[in-house]
């Protein structure tokens, strides 16, 4: 096995060998490696296939910007993770990784044929092809695309790992632990500011930490040595928290940031167990220092995507940080000074290399040093082609014309096994723009920079466009002193020597003799878009960068175009003949790097996913086999199947029992609002459509509440307990909103009213007993209470004691049967329920759930707000004009009831429907028409509630139908998939129109 690890470094622990599997084969690396550095040490460059053409692709970078080396980690159904960047993944014992997007394998795959038919796959390919015939999409195109171009596999079972959230507050947050971040953090912390420093890497130090060129020195030390000393010092600062392996995912307004901390991803399997895997930090910082650095740009030339072609600075890091060389015969292709550092480093380690420089000449100390070492430099030359299928083996260079627009002279072929490219540097302005900051364009080196810094946010270092060390340190110190309003002198006498210069020769698309159509100049490596695609999009009329991006998919892969956006913009500007910078940029959206769902969700999984509310009687329902229905956050008994009954049978039995003898419902979930104050009656007058002033103490009244637009909002029964004391009930689902709405009016429109609202929903439990025998059961429970219709009529209220505990009893009915609601303090709810059941035994008192409740009320034509109404129904639409007071001067929604639209006669109105076949049960939501032959069929309305009534022995339904009020007796049709159902419009009340049962 080849070994490209050529020297020892302090970051690689060669005493700790780590074995890992890549694509099923076992390899070895060392503690301190990333998966990428370990693969390179084993001579592996080829790590995947490109998305569209399935071209072989290699590791290109050493960080978050990596577009190619993305892999699938693990193979367990619940623990596999796709799209992990090998350049960021720390190696651990037992790591299993595989390359993605290369079915059936990375060395040979079917999709590779796309490479040869690539002229047929232009920009917008997916939009243009696969369009027709439609029937092919689902069965042919989609499976084919998915099979040949998947971006990894999702786990198929729940994630067993633990994730955590944490809220923190700091005076200063510093993002990025490179040289400028470290200086900023030290200055802040030493001036008594509570400071947090985060960095996504395992150790602090950024790219300076492995810097070893004697032309770049601080205080007469190598810059890396000086920085290590600084790091030692800041670790001693007590009010500085340092979080490594922590990356900022999003920067929201008001300096609220989200950071992801990796806690166990670098540990071997057995050490991961039972530990928190990742933690989402929710950070509020008074001030934020952005020191996120910059990333190196690739260059755009023909066949610039072969394995073995890397960013020049990445070659340097693999060498000086990991001790790994990316080749033995390396060519560096650059337009600026930074590749010379790489070259000199390689030379020192004895790696043969030469430089191809786009610039006509350059003469910094660094270049002089390279020249003096005998490193060959081709100034004013451009790489025009590369060769080698699975790895680069040679390339061609040509001389550039004077204006740089074309090539001249003869081709020179140079052999190599690795090519490093440096197209300059792109400041990472993501954080700045995410926070709302604007950008400026600097022409000299074609970079976007933070336009202005605000009082609570600042960018320092190379993310602010300061690239040489002297500039970075001086400017950072000055800016931080000003930003934090401090006067720190620590760096006043720091002596910096930096021999790098900033001149570049920027050419976005490098010239070539071969026409563009015949070359492959890649811009977005992950999504496989080329310079040609961008130009084609422009030719087809796309102008906006946002459109070109989507049409060509440039910058839309998991790397979000970290390496490609600038080149796309540059080529668009060049082609369109406008100045770069006038086009703006695409939007940098969070997250900066992908987040796991686990991190976002944190602990809110399983039973912590949502709040569950249970009534005091809940355990009894569970013991008695109830099926539950979610109503808002409440668990309500839905029905109580007996002896293997299905839902239909259980509901039929429960419904029949309730009307034949007695039924009991847990009504505790209904919203209850306690209303007190000298203006309580006036308040109710204003919020309900009907009049309340004359309601006698001890009486109950049904009320309908509207929105200001006249539409029904909620309903319920309100009881007058004393002169200035009412108890309002609301629907279960509407309780919280009703309270909020009432509070809103009280606080903002009618602050003069003396009214106090208190939610008491959770304070009382309610058992509702209905049916012809309900009075007898009540008599057993409350023997001293006069239950006669004269003393305790329908719609009235009494108080009594049950075993010395106060009960509020309302005789009110939602079923049409005589019915009593017993309210008791919640802690006694379970006992109350059991006593009711016991007392009702001899009367076959049958517990029923929400489904039977719905059926019973539908028989009586009582509406359910939210089921028979949908926010577009007025009281009149519901045929409930009787509840709207004509006398009251005003109430919420009154004026809207006679707007031109609400008085239209052809509004949808609530009606009853009877099926011609009494056994046929309609589907709720089914459409209602009068003529199935017209095309398109005119839809008149839809079914809102539908049941088979065991008490009437026929199917009944409520529906909303256009002009329904005038249609009684008319035939309508419900067209279903296989048949048309004939129905007749009826009254909404199906049972006991005379209300005999209420008082029986």
């Amino acid at each position, binding site marked *: 096995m080849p070994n490209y690890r050529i020297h020892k470094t302090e970051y690689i622990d060669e005493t700790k060998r780590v074995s890992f599997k890549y694509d099923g084969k076992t390899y070895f690396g060392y503690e301190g490696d990333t998966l990428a550095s370990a693969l390179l040490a084993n001579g592996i460059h080829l790590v995947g296939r490109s998305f569209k053409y399935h071209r072989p692709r290699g590791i290109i970078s050493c960080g978050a910007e990596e577009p190619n080396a993305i892999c699938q980690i693990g193979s367990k159904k619940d623990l596999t993770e796709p799209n992990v960047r090998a350049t960021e993944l720390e190696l651990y014992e037992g790591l299993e990784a595989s390359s993605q997007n290369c079915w059936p394998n990375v060395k040979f795959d079917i999709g590779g044929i796309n490479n040869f038919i690539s002229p047929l796959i232009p920009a917008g390919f997916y939009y243009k092809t696969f369009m027709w015939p439609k029937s092919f999409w689902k069965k042919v195109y989609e499976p084919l695309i998915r099979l040949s171009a998947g971006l990894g596999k999702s786990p198929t079972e729940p994630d067993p790992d633990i994730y955590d959230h944490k809220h923190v507050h700091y005076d200063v947050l510093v993002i990025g632990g490179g040289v400028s971040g470290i200086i900023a953090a030290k200055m802040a912390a030493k001036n008594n500011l509570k400071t947090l420093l985060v960095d996504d890497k395992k150790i602090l130090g950024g790219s300076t930490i492995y810097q070893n060129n004697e032309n770049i020195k601080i205080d007469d030390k190598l810059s890396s040595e000086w920085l290590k000393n600084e790091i030692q010092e800041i670790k001693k600062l007590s009010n500085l928290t340092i979080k490594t392996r922590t990356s900022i995912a999003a920067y929201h*307004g*008001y300096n609220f940031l989200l950071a992801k901390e990796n806690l166990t991803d670098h540990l071997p399997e057995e050490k991961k167990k039972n530990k928190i895997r990742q933690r989402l930090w929710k950070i509020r910082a008074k001030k934020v220092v952005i020191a996120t650095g910059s990333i190196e740009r690739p260059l755009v030339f023909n066949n610039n995507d072969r394995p073995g072609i890397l960013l020049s600075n990445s070659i340097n890091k693999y060498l000086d940080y990991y001790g790994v060389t990316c080749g033995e015969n390396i060519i560096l292709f650059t337009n600026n000074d930074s590749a010379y550092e790489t070259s000199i480093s390689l030379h020192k380690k004895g790696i043969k290399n030469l430089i191809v420089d786009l610039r006509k000449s350059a003469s910094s100390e660094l270049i002089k040093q390279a020249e003096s070492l005998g490193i060959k430099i081709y100034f004013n030359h451009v790489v025009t082609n590369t060769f080698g299928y699975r790895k680069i083996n040679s390339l061609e260079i040509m001389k550039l014309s004077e204006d740089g627009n074309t090539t001249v002279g003869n081709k020179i072929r140079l052999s190599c096994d690795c090519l490093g490219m440096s197209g300059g540097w792109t400041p990472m302005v993501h954080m700045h723009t995410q926070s709302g900051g604007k950008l400026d364009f600097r022409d000299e080196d074609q970079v976007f920079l933070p336009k202005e810094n605000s009082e609570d946010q600042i960018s320092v270092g190379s993310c602010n466009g300061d690239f040489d060390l002297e500039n970075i340190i001086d400017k950072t110190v000055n800016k931080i002193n000003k930003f934090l309003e401090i006067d720190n002198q620590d760096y006043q006498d720091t002596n910096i020597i930096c021999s790098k210069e900033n001149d570049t020769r920027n050419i976005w698309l490098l010239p070539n003799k071969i026409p563009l159509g015949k070359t492959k100049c890649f811009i977005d490596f992950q999504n496989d878009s080329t310079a040609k695609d961008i130009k084609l999009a422009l030719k087809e009329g796309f102008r906006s960068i946002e459109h070109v991006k989507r049409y060509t998919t440039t910058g839309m892969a998991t790397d979000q175009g970290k390496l490609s956006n600038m080149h796309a913009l540059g080529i668009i500007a060049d082609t369109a003949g406008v100045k770069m910078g006038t086009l703006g940029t695409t939007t940098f959206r969070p997250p900066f790097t992908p987040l796991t769902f686990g991190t976002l969700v944190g602990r809110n999984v399983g039973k912590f996913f949502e709040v569950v509310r249970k009534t005091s009687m809940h355990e009894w329902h569970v013991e008695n086999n109830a099926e539950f229905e979610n109503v808002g956050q409440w668990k309500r008994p839905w029905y109580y199947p007996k002896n293997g009954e299905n839902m239909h049978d259980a509901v039929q039995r429960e419904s029949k029992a309730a009307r034949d003898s007695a039924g009991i419902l847990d009504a505790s979930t209904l919203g209850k609002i306690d209303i007190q104050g000298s203006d309580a009656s006036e308040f109710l007058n204003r919020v309900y459509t009907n009049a309340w002033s004359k309601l006698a103490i001890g009486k109950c009244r049904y009320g309908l509440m509207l929105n200001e637009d006249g539409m029904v909002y909620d309903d319920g029964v309100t009881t007058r307990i004393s002169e200035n004391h009412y108890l309002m009930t609301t629907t279960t689902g509407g309780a919280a909103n009703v309270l909020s709405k009432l509070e809103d009016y009280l606080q903002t*429109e009618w602050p003069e009213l003396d009214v106090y609202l208190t939610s008491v929903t959770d304070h009382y439990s309610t058992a509702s007993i209905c049916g012809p025998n309900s009075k007898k059961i009540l008599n057993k429970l409350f023997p001293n209470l006069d239950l006669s219709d004269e003393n305790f009529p329908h719609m009235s209220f009494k108080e009594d004691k049950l075993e010395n505990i106060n009960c509020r009893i309302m005789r009110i009915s939602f079923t049409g049967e005589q019915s009593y609601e017993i309210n008791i303090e919640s802690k006694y709810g379970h006992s109350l329920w059991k006593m009711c059941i016991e007392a009702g035994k001899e009367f076959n008192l049958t517990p029923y759930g929400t489904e039977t409740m719905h059926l019973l009320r539908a028989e009586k034509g009582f509406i359910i707000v939210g089921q028979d109404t949908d926010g577009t129904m007025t009281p009149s639409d519901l045929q409930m004009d009787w509840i709207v007071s004509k006398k009251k001067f005003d109430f919420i929604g009154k004026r809207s009831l006679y707007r031109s639209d609400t008085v239209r006669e052809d509004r949808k109105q609530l009606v009853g429907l009877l099926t011609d076949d009494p056994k046929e049960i309609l589907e709720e939501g089914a459409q209602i028409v009068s003529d199935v032959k017209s095309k398109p069929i005119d839809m008149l309305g839809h079914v809102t509630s539908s049941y088979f009534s065991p008490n009437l022995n026929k199917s009944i339904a409520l529906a909303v139908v256009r002009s329904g009020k005038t249609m009684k007796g008319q035939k309508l049709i419900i067209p279903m998939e296989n048949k048309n159902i004939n129905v007749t419009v009826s009254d909404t009340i199906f049972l006991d129109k005379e209300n005999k049962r209420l008082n029986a």
Partner: protein
Amino acid sequence: MFLINCPFCGERDQSEFSSGGEAHIVRPKQPTELSDDEWAEYLFMRKNIKGIQFERWNHVHGCRKWFNVVRDTSNDKILSVYKMGEKPPVNYK
């Protein structure tokens, strides 16, 4: 994510609040005397300003009090917070 200075509780996270739309829209005292158009103006028409906007907010997961906020919608900066019934600060008109 705003940090909102509730006039009753102090600075709290935006997630504790709910927004109630435009402020200082007074419910007409005599709705019955309004034409359809006038009523619709009250009921439906709201400003949507890029710049300084007066808004109602409710500390719904806190003290449950409603209050007013002056916010610059172009940068989300909250410029002023004041209680219901108080006059809006004049310098933002």
